[in-house]
C-alpha cells in the first residue's frame, strides 16, 4: 500500500517534471534564437570596430562646451598687439579690459583665479601654478625655450620647441606657439545669452534693466526703452531667440493643425468605413483601402513629397501629419463605430428622429470619449513627429536643431534648443494627459 503511494507520487513528480520541461522548451528555444540574432546583429553592425573608433572624449567635450564658454586673451607675437575676446571672436572683443587682465600689450598679467597667474612680457611668459611652480617660456629666435620647475613633467603639460601647452585644470589653459600666446579662461554659463556682446545692455543686471526700462531717456531714438530691451533680446544674433520661438510655434502649429485636419477628415470617412453604418460593401472596401494607403505610405514619405510641392515650412508638416493620421484616426474611429451599442440608436430612432439626429444623439455621444482621447493622444505624439519631420526639412524647431548641430561650433546653442524641445514635448504631454483625464468622465490617473 505504502509502496503503491510512493510509486504514484514518483509518477506524479515525473509527470510534472515532463510537463515543466515541455513548457520550458519553447521559451528556451526562443531565447536561444534571440541570442543568436543579437550575435548576428553585433557582427552586422560591426560593433567591435565601432567601439574602437568611438570618441568618448568628443562627448565629454560636447557636454562641457554646452555649459561653459571661454574667453581668449591672445597676444600676437609678430605684430606685438593683444586682445581679449569671448571665444576669440572678432565681434565679441572687449574694448575695456575686464578686471582680471591688467597692463598693456608689452607687459600684462592675467589672473586666472585661485593663484593661477600668467604674466606676459614682450615675447616671454611666466605661468604660476600653485602646488607646482612657475613655468617660464620665451621665444628665442624660432624656438620656444621653456624652463620648468624641478621634478617630473606632469601630463597636463607639453613643452616642445614649437609649442607650449599647459592646462593644469579644466578651466585654465595657456598655449604658446611661434606666432602667438593664447590664454583661455573658462567660465560656466551661456555667454551673451540675454543681449549681444556689442549691445549697451550687455552685462546689465535685472535691476539695472528695470531702471533703464523705466527711465524716460531713450537709448534708441526710435522706440521706448522697454521695447528696445525686448527687441535687443529677441533679435540677439547669436542665440536667435525670436527665430527659435517662431520655430517652436511652427512645430506646435504643425502638430495641432495636422491632427485637427486628420480628425475632421477621418470622422466622416469612418462612418463610410463602418459596416453598421454603410451597407455598401464596395464603398466600405474602397475607403478602408484609402485609410491603409495613406497610413502605410508613412509620414516620412508624405513629408518628402510635400516638401517638393509646398516648400519648407509648417504647412508642409501639417499636411504630412494630416494625411498619415487621417488613415490612423479613420481606422480607429471606424472600429469604435462598429463597437457602439445599437440600443441607444434605436432609442433615439423610436422618438421619430431622422438619420442625422440619430447620428448626432445616438452615435456621437458614444464615440466622443474614444474620439477625444485618441485625438489628444495623437496631438501629443505628433508634437514629437513634427520635430522629427522638421529635421528632415519640413521646418520648425527640428530644422533649427539640425542646422545648429551641423555647424558644430556652438554646442551651447544646440543644448539650448534640445532643452526647449524637451520642455515643449513635456508640456504637450502633460497638458494632453490632464485634458484627457478632465474630459473623459471616469478617466483616472494612470
Amino acid at each position, binding site marked *: 500500500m505504502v509502496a503503491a503511494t510512493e510509486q504514484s507520487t514518483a509518477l506524479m513528480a515525473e509527470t510534472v517534471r515532463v510537463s515543466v520541461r515541455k513548457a520550458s522548451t519553447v521559451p528556451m528555444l526562443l531565447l536561444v534564437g534571440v541570442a543568436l540574432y543579437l550575435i548576428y546583429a553585433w557582427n552586422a553592425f560591426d560593433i567591435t570596430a565601432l567601439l574602437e573608433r568611438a570618441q568618448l572624449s568628443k562627448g565629454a567635450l560636447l557636454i562641457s562646451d554646452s555649459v561653459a564658454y571661454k574667453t581668449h586673451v591672445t597676444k600676437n607675437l609678430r605684430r606685438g598687439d593683444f586682445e581679449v575676446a569671448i571665444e576669440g571672436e572678432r565681434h565679441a572683443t572687449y574694448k575695456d579690459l575686464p578686471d582680471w587682465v591688467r597692463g598693456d600689450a608689452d607687459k600684462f598679467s592675467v589672473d586666472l583665479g585661485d593663484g593661477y597667474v600668467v604674466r606676459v612680457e614682450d615675447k616671454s611668459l611666466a605661468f604660476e601654478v600653485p602646488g607646482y611652480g612657475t613655468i617660464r617660456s620665451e621665444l628665442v629666435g624660432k624656438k620656444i625655450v621653456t624652463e620648468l620647475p624641478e621634478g617630473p613633467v606632469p601630463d597636463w603639460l607639453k613643452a616642445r620647441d614649437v609649442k607650449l601647452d599647459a592646462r593644469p585644470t579644466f578651466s585654465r589653459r595657456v598655449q604658446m606657439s611661434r606666432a602667438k600666446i593664447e590664454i583661455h579662461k573658462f567660465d560656466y554659463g551661456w555667454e551673451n545669452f540675454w543681449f549681444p556682446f556689442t549691445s549697451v545692455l550687455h552685462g546689465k543686471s535685472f535691476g539695472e534693466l528695470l531702471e533703464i526700462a523705466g527711465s524716460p531717456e531713450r537709448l534708441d531714438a526710435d522706440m521706448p526703452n522697454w521695447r528696445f530691451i525686448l527687441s535687443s533680446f529677441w533679435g540677439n544674433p547669436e542665440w536667435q531667440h525670436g527665430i527659435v520661438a517662431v520655430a517652436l510655434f511652427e512645430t506646435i502649429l504643425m502638430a495641432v493643425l495636422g491632427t*485637427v485636419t486628420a480628425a475632421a477628415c477621418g470622422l466622416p470617412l469612418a462612418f463610410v468605413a463602418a459596416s453598421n453604418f454603410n451597407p455598401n460593401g464596395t464603398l466600405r472596401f474602397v475607403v478602408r483601402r484609402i485609410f491603409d494607403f495613406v497610413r502605410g505610405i508613412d509620414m516620412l*514619405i508624405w513629408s518628402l513629397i510635400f516638401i517638393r510641392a509646398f516648400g519648407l*515650412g*509648417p*504647412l508642409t508638416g501639417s499636411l504630412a501629419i494630416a494625411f498619415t493620421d487621417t488613415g490612423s484616426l479613420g481606422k480607429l474611429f471606424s472600429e469604435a463605430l462598429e463597437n457602439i451599442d445599437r440600443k441607444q440608436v434605436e432609442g433615439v430612432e423610436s422618438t421619430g428622429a431622422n438619420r442625422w439626429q440619430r447620428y448626432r444623439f445616438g452615435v456621437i455621444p458614444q464615440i466622443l470619449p474614444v474620439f477625444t482621447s485618441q485625438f489628444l493622444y495623437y496631438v501629443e505624439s505628433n508634437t514629437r513627429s513634427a520635430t522629427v519631420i522638421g529635421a528632415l526639412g519640413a521646418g520648425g524647431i527640428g530644422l533649427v536643431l539640425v542646422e545648429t548641430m551641423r555647424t558644430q561650433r556652438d554646442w551651447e546653442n544646440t543644448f539650448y534648443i534640445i532643452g526647449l524641445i524637451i520642455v515643449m514635448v513635456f508640456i504637450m504631454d502633460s497638458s494632453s494627459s490632464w485634458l484627457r483625464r478632465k474630459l473623459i468622465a471616469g478617466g483616472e490617473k494612470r
Partner: protein
Amino acid sequence: MVDVMRQDLLALEGRRRLYTGLSVVLLIAVVAAGYREASALNSGGFLQGLLKFFDYPSQIVMQAWDQGWEFWSLFPKFLPALIETINIAAVATIIGAVFATVLSLASSRNLEVPAAIIPVVRRIMDIMRAFPELIIALFLIFVLGASPVPAAIAVAFHTSGALGKLFSEVNENIDVKPLEGLKATGSNWLQRVRFGVIPQVLPNYSSYFLLRFEINVRASAILGFVGAGGIGTELSRAIGWGAGSEVAALFLMLFLSIVAIDQLSSYLRRHFVGAENFS
C-alpha cells in the same frame, strides 16, 4: 408646472446648442487662421503647391518607367539597406522590451515591490517616452560616428519607456491567485514572477512587442535620414542626387516592407492574444 419645466429644459437645450455651435465656428476659424499662418510661414504657397503636387510623384514614376526592366534590378541593390533598417528596429525592440519588462515589473502596484520606487520608475518611463529619439540619435552619431548603432540605441531608449508603460498596465490586470499559490509553496519573488506573472502576461507582451516593432521600423527609416544608415540614408542620398528611379524603388520597398510587417504582426498578434481579444 410641467410646461414651465419643459420650457426651462428647452431654453437650456437651446443655449447648449448655441454654445456648441459657437465653439464649432470658433474651432473652424482657429483652424482656418492656423492654415493661413502656416501657409504664410511656408516657403512655397498653398495654391502653387497644389498645382505642383503631382509633379514630383509623376516625375519619379516617369523616370522609373523609363528604366524599364532595369528598374527591378534596383531592388536587390537596396536590399542590404532595407535589412539594415529592419535590423535596427529588431535589435532596438528586443533590447527595449527587456528593459521595459524590468521597468514594468518595478512599477506595478500588485507585484509587491516597494511602494516608494513605483512612482520613481513611472516618472523615469515618462521621461524616456517623451525624450525625442532624434536628439539621442544625433548626439550618439556625433560621439560614435555615423552608423546604425546610435539609431538602435535611441530607438531602444524610447521603446523602453513606451513599452514599459503598456507592460505595467498588463501586469496590473493579471490574476493574483497564482501568485498567492506560489507564495504558499515558499517561492521567492523572482520565482513568483517567473511562474506566476510571465505566463499570464506573455501573450499581451508579445502583441505589444510586435506593434512596437512595426512602429520602430518606421522610426529607424526616419533616423536613417540624419545619418544612421539603412534605407533612410539611401533615400536621402537618392533624393539629394535627384535619382528619380532610385527614389521610386526605395519608396516602393519601404512601402512594401511596412505593409508586410504590418500584416505579419497583426496575424501574429491575433494568434497570441486570440481573435476575440483583438482590438
